[in-house]
């Protein structure tokens, strides 16, 4: 039906304005989809906490999950490891008291650099563990987030991390950035 309605109009525009003028004419073939059907893909977390799911976790809960699922690449306690056959670091440390050294990116850590704690939840849930991303429950992701924040002394070890508490975690380097090509700076 759509074709029959659109084609004569398409021909008219072609005739009148040439091909350039009809480039905005599109076939409108996108399929509507509901929020519920989007949910499984809708995984980005904003710095203000938008997108954070229900659930919660603590550092204690996170410690055993980390030992089980993360330490193989990130080392015991998240302090880094050299486990690849080439000797290249398998994965960066996620718990570190390293100081930044000049302009060297490789001395940047969660504790000394990341502006927002919400990024931890977002990244763990979307990309970790490396061999089986999206395999952790939301509670497990909260627990791992709490564990990494606590081990880095960014939160109290007893703090429950959830959708309300995570966006309120103050990261030390929050104001350490200069926006190079601004359209708008986030949450200032």
């Amino acid at each position, binding site marked *: 039906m759509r074709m029959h309605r659109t084609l004569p109009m398409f021909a008219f525009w072609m005739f009148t304005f040439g091909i350039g003028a009809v480039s905005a004419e599109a076939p409108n073939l996108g399929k509507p989809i509901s929020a519920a059907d989007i949910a499984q893909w809708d995984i980005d977390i904003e710095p203000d906490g938008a997108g954070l799911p229900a659930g919660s976790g603590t550092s204690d809960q996170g410690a055993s999950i980390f030992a089980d699922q993360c330490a193989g690449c990130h080392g015991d306690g998240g302090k880094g490891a050299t486990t690849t056959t080439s000797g290249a670091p398998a994965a960066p440390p996620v718990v570190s008291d390293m100081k930044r050294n000049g302009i060297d*990116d490789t001395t940047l850590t969660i504790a000394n650099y990341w502006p927002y704690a919400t990024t931890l939840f977002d990244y763990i849930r979307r990309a970790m563990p490396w061999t089986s991303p999206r395999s952790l429950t939301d509670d497990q992701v909260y627990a791992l987030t709490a564990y990494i924040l606590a081990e880095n002394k960014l939160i109290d070890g007893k703090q429950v991390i959830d959708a309300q508490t995570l966006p309120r975690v103050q990261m030390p380097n929050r104001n350490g950035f200069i926006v190079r090509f601004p359209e708008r700076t986030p949450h200032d």
Partner: protein
Amino acid sequence: MSRSRNKDSIDQVAGNGLLHRRALLGRGLAIAGALGTGAMGSPTSAAAEPLSEQDWSLSPGGPVPAYQTPSKFAKSVVRTLSNPSFEPRTSQSRTPHQLLDGMITPNGVFFTIVHDGVPDIDPAAHQLLIHGLVKQPLTFSYETLLRYPMTSRIAFIECGGNSAGLFSPKPLQTDVQGLHGLISCAEWTGVKLSTLLEETGIDSKAKWFIGEGADAAHVMRSVPLAKALDDAMIALYQNGEPLMPGNGYPMRLLLPGYEGNMNIKYLRRIKLVPEAAMSYWESQIYTEPLPNGKAYQFYFVNEVKSFITQPSPGCTLQQPGLYEISGIAYSGKGRISKVLVSADGGQSWAEAALQEPVLSMAFTRFRMPWRWNGGPAVLQSRAWDEDGNAQPTRAEFVSQRGELTSVPPLLAFENHHFNAVTSWAVDEKGTVKHAYA
């Protein structure tokens, strides 16, 4: 011979043997020929061998394959791999610019970075979702997108970490591929993102969008919405054929002039949002610590840059005479307006010929005739774009952005967005090495 020398001095346009570019173009072709004869003609060259038939001329050749790959004699024209045994980490492969010419990077050697392997995506099961601050969330299948009006453009894609080795306090000794191999240029064909956003409608609160991939890392970046309404494309074809798996098959986001990581491969989701999402990649990886302790964030544009691909490290000049200096210039802010070349480490400069076509945010091939006299030389190129930006010298760049305190591993990424002048030093033996000058 004396006439030839006079001709040389007339045509020399900058120090240490740089010749007027008419030696390459138009009527200059005749001049180049004359110079070539003067310098390397029959008086000093051994006579050619007698010609004979080779085996491949004496029996039928091979069958025609359905999809052709390069000759086995060109097997060195390949990418170098940072993670050949596929350990659980990011993999980079670098383009062999020293073995290529022109402005288009062939698909087989187009650089690839993947953060969790190259996904094997069935386009029949792939969906592109556009949602968030839109009037109507919509999904588009691959098949569906093929029905949309297409547009083509030639554009480079450069990793923000390309040339990171030049932050080293001493010049790293590797080739163009090792130093500058994380950039390539292709013709991209696809559907403009703005066309699809017309269909979904845009809520006026939307200021950014995020792009996200279907790869296992689910790579996600935030992009100002203005880019979506300007020149962002859902690219489906790369140099005329479906995208390569390492470059985003079946579809990727193309953001001309913006750092490679933002050009989301395996694109499956676009969400319009009020603020940047601050993904891992924009919170740490693609940021640039500065000497003053602060750091650049949202350094999107790959700024004006150039480097010489011939001659370059790894090649040896066999004898004094006429050579063509050739290289690549580009800018994420528009067309290249001018490239200057120096053969004396920046003491004197001459304007290179720009190979047509010169396109916005695409590779521009530059060429410069040079008579090597057999002595030391330091070759440099420096580009300007139509926006008025000059490629910085290394000294200018380091005064702003700093350099490392110690020599880093060859393939490390200690910082990003290096765009200063690169220098190649030629010694009396014709050996070419990376140098700081």
